[in-house]
């Protein structure tokens, strides 16, 4: 039995037939072909799948596609400008070497944008705590924390030792 869902993804109206059990991330990846959002676990732990639903960070592996009916969804593909110019949070990740393999990155960036929206001026401890639901195996989080801080609270970015 399939159900029709209509949602707005990155500014475009999209309609798809889904099973009741289809996860939002499956709809995005498998049916809409938007593979920027990743799946890293089965237990809502890793955050590789974070997107924005109605301007809130959501783990798209933990929401059914049918629950997105009529909602506004923004994925990593919708963050940069149409000409490819990076969003300031994406740019900050690049400046601070906030990614290595890139697999956790879409979720991290979407989470970073969400933190910036909710907690301007946040300190390092707060940013680290806010990333509780996002796992990165490569970077040791240092570049990620610096990147997010550089957007929400530039004065709190610790000095680098590139000597």
């Amino acid at each position, binding site marked *: 039995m399939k159900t029709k869902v209509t949602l707005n993804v990155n500014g475009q109206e999209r309609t798809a037939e889904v099973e009741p*059990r289809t996860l939002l991330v499956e709809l995005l*990846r498998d049916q809409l072909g*938007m*593979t*920027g*959002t*990743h*799946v*890293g*676990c*089965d*237990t809502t*732990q*890793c955050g*590789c799948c974070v997107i924005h639903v109605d301007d809130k960070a959501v783990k798209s592996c933990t929401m059914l596609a049918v629950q997105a009916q009529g909602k506004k969804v923004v*994925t*990593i*593909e919708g*963050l*940069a400008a149409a000409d*490819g110019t*990076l969003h300031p949070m*994406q740019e900050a*990740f*690049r*400046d601070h*070497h906030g*990614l*290595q*393999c*890139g*697999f*956790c*990155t*879409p979720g991290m*960036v979407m989470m970073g944008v969400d933190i910036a929206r909710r907690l301007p001026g946040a300190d*390092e*401890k707060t*940013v*680290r*705590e806010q*990333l*509780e639901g*996002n*796992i*990165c*195996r*490569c*970077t*040791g*989080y*240092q*570049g*990620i*924390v610096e990147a997010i801080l550089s957007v929400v609270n530039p004065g709190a970015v*610790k000095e*680098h*030792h*590139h*000597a």
Partner: protein
Amino acid sequence: MGQFGIGQPLRRKEDPRLLRGEGRYTDDVNVDGQLWAAFYRSPHPHADILSIDPAPARAAPGVAAVFTIADLDADGVPDMPCEVELSDLSGRPMWKPMRPILARGRVRFVGECVAIVLAATQAQAREAAELLKVEYAPLPAVADSESALAADAPVLWEALGSNVPVHWQNQDSAPVDAAMAAAAHRVRVRIVNNRLVPSPMEPKAALAAWDAQAAKLTLWAPTQGGRRIQANIAKRYLRLEQDQLRVISQDVGGGFGMRGQTYPEFVAVAWAAKQIGGAVKWRADRTETFFSDYHGRDQVNEAEMGLDSDGRMVALKIVTLVNLGAYMAENGPRMPIEGGGRIIPCCYHAPQFHFSVKPVFTNTVSTDTYRGAGRPEANFLMERLMDEAARATGLPREEVRRRNYITQFPYRTPMGYVIDSGEFARGMDDALRMAEWSTFEERRTEARARGRLRGIGVAAFIEAAGGRAPTEDMRVRVDAEGAVTVFSGSHAHGQGHDTVFSQLVNEFLGVDPDRVRLVQGDTDVTPRGSIGTFGSRSSMMGGGGLKASCEKIVAKATLVAAHLMQAEPAAVRFETGVFRAGASETTFSEVAAAAWDARRIPEGMTPGLDESCLFQREAENFPNGCHVCEVEIDPDTGTPEIVRYVAIDDCGVVLNPLIVHGQVYGGVAQGLGQAMVENALYDADGQLVSATYMDYGMPRAHHMAHVEAGFNTTPCRTNPLGVKGAGEAGACGAPPAFIGALVDALRDHGVTHIDMPATPEKIWRAINRANAPA
């Protein structure tokens, strides 16, 4: 050094694509008409398979095929071997089992593949796999290596008769025992080096598509360089010519040593695709990766160190058990012996050394390489011994290290490896200074006033990088417009080769990094002699091959330039992208254009500017460093907080500090993960208790502290770039630095060691056991 060349913190070229969500990982690829695969896996740690009835699964909706070992055997698909050769002191070789791709007659660990189910959708394949009917006769199981040694322990391999396939020793222990007996001080440690799950964030996946027209199979899979897997799967398992299999690993979500191997799932998916003459896709869920990715570490070490009255080591004895799992993975027993043995006794001179290793079979998934592969275990052991030596001799922890550091290079280790360079004392001094070691006691006192226990730990370590495979194949092609393509045998899955190789091309050819393109991870185009990336080898092996290829390019281009300028080749100089001879000059681009034009090159020369090099290394390199960790413990909860972390690393010549520091930070996080939270736990019956991220502690952002990092650069003397690997250093330094700090914080509670992971519960118990009335 130019603006973009060696040593510059160039931002990564690969980032914009990955940041926009345009990465192309295996699961992002789909082929029209593909079937989905799911594996039926053993729920038992040890059992005889009495019967398999695939009929109910075959009848399920959408199912196209169900294959078991009977189908593979009918097609003559061989079992998987272990590549390691070892023997005991009498010369008797190690006993080695083979691993069937799908279980044959018996299962030996939870999660072992028994059948592969193909269906139209992933959900259908998984549901059908659950319908498979397998009858088992359960057998007693054993999961930890010490229990597996017991006389009445279940034996995994009857043909072997015990669970120990070899007792390897470097030499007879008599001379070491004599020196030990005569030592003024003797210290002992017993260390359980916890089992870890490598856990790159991209789960294992594979997509195989058979093209009957071309008689060729394409396999997309996350690997650390596809050539070895290509050769293995094509020739051994599918009986194809090597080039009838194309392996593509475009973007790979982390490796950490666990992606170099040919996993049975890859073989099964590739074979199934060929068998049905179509395409088959499989993606593991996270729990499957916990069950089936090869695990790391899992050693038990008992060690004794003898010192003279000045605190200088006179003898060292290490007895190691390494848990192999049920089968022997490609590199399994290599970990302590070649992995750790390449550096033992680490930064220190040990005049007498005895090393004994018993690999042990248990009912668990195999262990193999994971970030550091034996070296983190070795360094942890030596650093715990050094802290104990400080206690026994009354010397400060830094002083006992200083007295035992290797200072003369080249230095031949007791195992016969030659360390070319290092400045261990200087690195430690830098780290101690940066960490304000000398004023630590003030901070301890201040913390005590707040009711917190504060401690500091220091750890020196050494690594071995670029080892094992002594060659790497790199190719550089300059097109007629002067743009450069690097065809790389090594493979980046986070290490930033696109950026670093562009910097090297810029350094050697003067070409703008934006005009350099990296081609990797596709066996149709990567060089034939490609090996891949593991053991932090790409800077030396890939970089060395790239440098040599660029030198060949310059040599040929010089002849073309001389021809163009009508000069003697010997009179031509090449500098920052320009060829000069006397007053005439011509740019690299002009020469590149001419080089492809048969009318504009010297007679007898083949047109083109396309060179490659099968780089042969002279020796491994030995990255090293010193890390200092400072912790505070809340005695009411046992929760540790890292308040400061200093990392001084000798990675030789630094090609890009942004990227090298990134490697250090990542390694430190994995090291702290091991020390603080990670533990792959099998219960006594062989069930994997920690099979999700809810049960397996992953280091998160709040566990970590800002790492203050610096370099103690000592250029490597045995490779052309002077580089040393950077990938595994952090994983070596962090566990002993952290545990050393904890023990220091708890010293007044009589604590001398805490096994990893030092969870708040363990720390709380250590405090309260000490406080309990006797």
